[in-house]
């Protein structure tokens, strides 16, 4: 966990280097951490102001840094008093089993701590959704135990109150987006002015402010996902579970969402644990602190298998497989081809050496990725 000064320094750097939107979001998160209504309101207003001006003049933020830096300093002063509560154990999944319609989830164990992101990956039909539903209390477990450390007393209603589960197919809602958000916020006892402040904050933070009065039909699937995340975040959950949240998003939206999730879970005052499943392996791996790979309902131990090869890379080239095999025959490199990419695995070479060697041999590589520590290898 970074200290407060470093965090604020990073935010300022982001702003000065032109990542204005990112800096605004992080500034808002920190304002929220302070719990000071005035600062939160100011951060909302400032964010809206910059976004509005930047829509007219792209370089506005570079030319007007003072409002941002002034507010950031104010927030920093308040933030110094915030107590870090990251790292607490939230939830422990202890050797759970689940049999459902001929499918079996067997002996899954892991822990979730505050500020931690856990990625659940695996091919379709390998138990990702079943596992998430077991954690969220939608599925009963047949064996093992799930310990919810954030609950004072166990009841499934309390579990569902404190765990926010966003299914892959987001249920339809009615009425305006803002009414729904206000309504959700009241669910945990946020009433009156505080309710409106929280809703305005989340609307601005999730870039939904201009859609406040929109209905379900008027939103794209990407914004529906954003709305759902905004809705559950208003309920201040301890654990946020997302089933394939990236499925309906374009590349840019995926990046934005993942960075949002990362920053939200790393809140200083209200850090939460996040569990998300996805087929976008590389994207998830970028933000996840831990990856759980499921295969046929069982957890695959990544560490144990990863010892086999020192280097595994994925490349895309127009060179034919037999030419690659000829070039690499003396290097003891295992080559596999899935129709799109070649996967090269070596016990002798490291990534740099392997890429250098291929370049020296005149192989034209369009794309490459080091997947030595990625779960992609096990698909």
């Amino acid at each position: 966990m970074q200290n407060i000064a470093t965090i604020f320094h990073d935010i300022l750097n982001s702003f000065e280097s032109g990542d204005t939107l990112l800096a605004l979001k992080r500034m808002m998160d920190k304002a929220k951490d302070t719990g000071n209504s005035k600062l939160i309101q100011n951060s909302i207003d400032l964010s809206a102001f910059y976004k509005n001006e930047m829509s007219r003049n792209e370089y506005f933020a570079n030319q007007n840094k003072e409002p941002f830096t002034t507010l950031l300093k104010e927030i920093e002063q308040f933030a110094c008093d915030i107590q870090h509560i990251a790292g607490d154990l939230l939830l422990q999944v202890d050797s759970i089993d689940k049999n459902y319609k001929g499918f079996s989830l067997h002996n899954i164990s892991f822990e979730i701590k505050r500020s931690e992101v856990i990625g659940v990956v695996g091919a379709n039909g390998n138990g990702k959704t079943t596992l998430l539903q077991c954690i969220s209390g939608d599925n009963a477990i047949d064996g093992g135990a799930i310990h919810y450390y954030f609950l004072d007393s166990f009841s499934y209603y309390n579990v569902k109150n404190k765990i926010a589960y966003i299914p892959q197919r987001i249920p339809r809602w009615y009425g305006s987006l803002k009414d729904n958000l206000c309504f959700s916020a009241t669910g945990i006892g946020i009433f009156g002015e505080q309710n409106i402040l929280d809703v305005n904050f989340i609307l601005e933070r999730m870039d939904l402010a201009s859609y406040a009065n929109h209905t379900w039909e008027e939103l794209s699937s990407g914004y529906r996902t954003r709305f759902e995340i905004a809705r559950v975040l208003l309920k201040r959950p301890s654990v946020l579970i997302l089933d394939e949240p990236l499925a309906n998003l374009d590349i840019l939206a995926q990046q934005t969402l993942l960075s949002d999730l990362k920053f939200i879970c790393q809140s200083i005052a209200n850090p939460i644990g996040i569990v998300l499943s996805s087929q976008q392996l590389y994207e998830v791996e970028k933000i996840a602190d831990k990856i759980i790979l499921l295969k046929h309902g069982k957890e695959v131990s990544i560490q144990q298998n990863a010892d086999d090869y020192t280097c595994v890379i994925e490349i895309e080239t127009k060179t034919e497989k037999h030419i690659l095999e000829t070039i690499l025959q003396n290097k003891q490199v295992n080559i596999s081809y899935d129709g799109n990419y070649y996967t090269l695995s070596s016990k002798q070479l490291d990534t740099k050496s392997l890429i250098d060697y291929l370049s020296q041999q005149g192989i034209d590589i369009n794309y490459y990725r080091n997947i030595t520590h990625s779960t992609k290898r096990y698909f």
Partner: protein
Amino acid sequence: MKKYLPNFLQKFDQYLLTHFPDFWSTQLHWVIIGSIPITLFIGFISTLDVSGLEFYIGFISLISFIFWITRLLRFNYFKQFGRIHFFHALVQFLCFFCTVSIFTLWIVTPTLVKYFKYNMHTVQKDVDRMNELYCILERDSLPKEWPLNKIIIYTHNSNYYKRERSKIINGEEIPIEYATYGYKRYEKDSLQKIDDSTFYMYSNNIYSAYTFNKNGYEYRYGEGENNDWQINSNKRSALFQKYIVERQVPNKPNSVFTSELENYFTKYQIEDEELWGYDDYSKSLGNRLNWKYHGREANDVFARIAQSHSEIANILSTVVFYPWYIVSVFLALCIFIYRHCTRKVFIWTWVGYAIMTIFNLFASILFRDGMVFLYLGFVYIVMYFIGVLVMLFARKANFISLLCLNYFTFCIPTLPAQLMFEKNSNWFFDQHGAHSLQMVLIGFVLLLISLVGAIGPLYKSFYAMPSR
């Protein structure tokens, strides 16, 4: 749609949303606001005595109810797993009950309007006066001698009265004061109030004409012809005296009385329409009066008025209260249950209900006893209770237990009435309905207590349980 509303209403809505979300989600505030102009409109229309009004109002109620349901289903505080306060289930049910009550009360509005528009005392007085006017105008047609041995006395507390009054209006039990004018004047020719407890009427049957009636009057059984209830001849004479005085030949021209009669026709909007049943004209004095003085139309108008008064008078008993109460509680419970269980369980609740009803019918036919329904009802209640208990120890949501909880919730308001019915099968049809009203109210209170103490917490616990 909200954006088209005045700003203060939008602010009010926003205030309720951010302060009382469970109340706001029921949309009761919009129902109350919307019902004010609609009720006023219905009230205004009701004063015009439009025929078939109840049908149109029923249609408006239905449309409003459906519209409200579509709005209601938008937000559900319970299913969002928010913080549920102790009285949540009670508040939700009461909101649903109030809303449904408003829609069902619209249907009763014409009755209420008529009640206030036509004061019963005035109507009674007018009817009496019209009868007198008929008698004055037709004085030459009236018999000169009263057959004193043909006077019949009806009393409120006699079995005979109960039997007799049940014949009055399609088998419904209507006190004699509220018998339709049609009965009073057309069927029995006329029933005229002499004082607070005395009526006299003349019949269109020449052989039993001039039947007199007195509430709680002294009577004896078994005297006179045809075992009629006979009045003590001394008191009977006193009744005639008044009538005879009134039917003395007046000292004013007939045109004065005709004009007065016309005023009554105007007051009660009695139309000058072609009369049917002309063939009856020659048969009796009553029919002649009807034909000549628009008696049939008057009958219809006064029948409606009298019926309205009858309904109001019995509003806490059989005619209005029970249907209104049963429909309102039933619909409110349906909505409450739908809002607190899954759609699948809700649908299967009705499928199961249909299956049980068919089974009960077969059982009734098999045992040739209608009481089988009641006995099976008790068996079911015990089964539902056990089913609910099973769920308390279950690891995941049990479909059958959820059905049992739904059925049990439906049964709670009827439990006291069922128990009393079992104790005394005749009890429910007690003439005053006092016991049944008590049991219905006890059932309602029991439901409210259960919502707080048992039903609410059970739904909260059951709905959140894993479904698989």
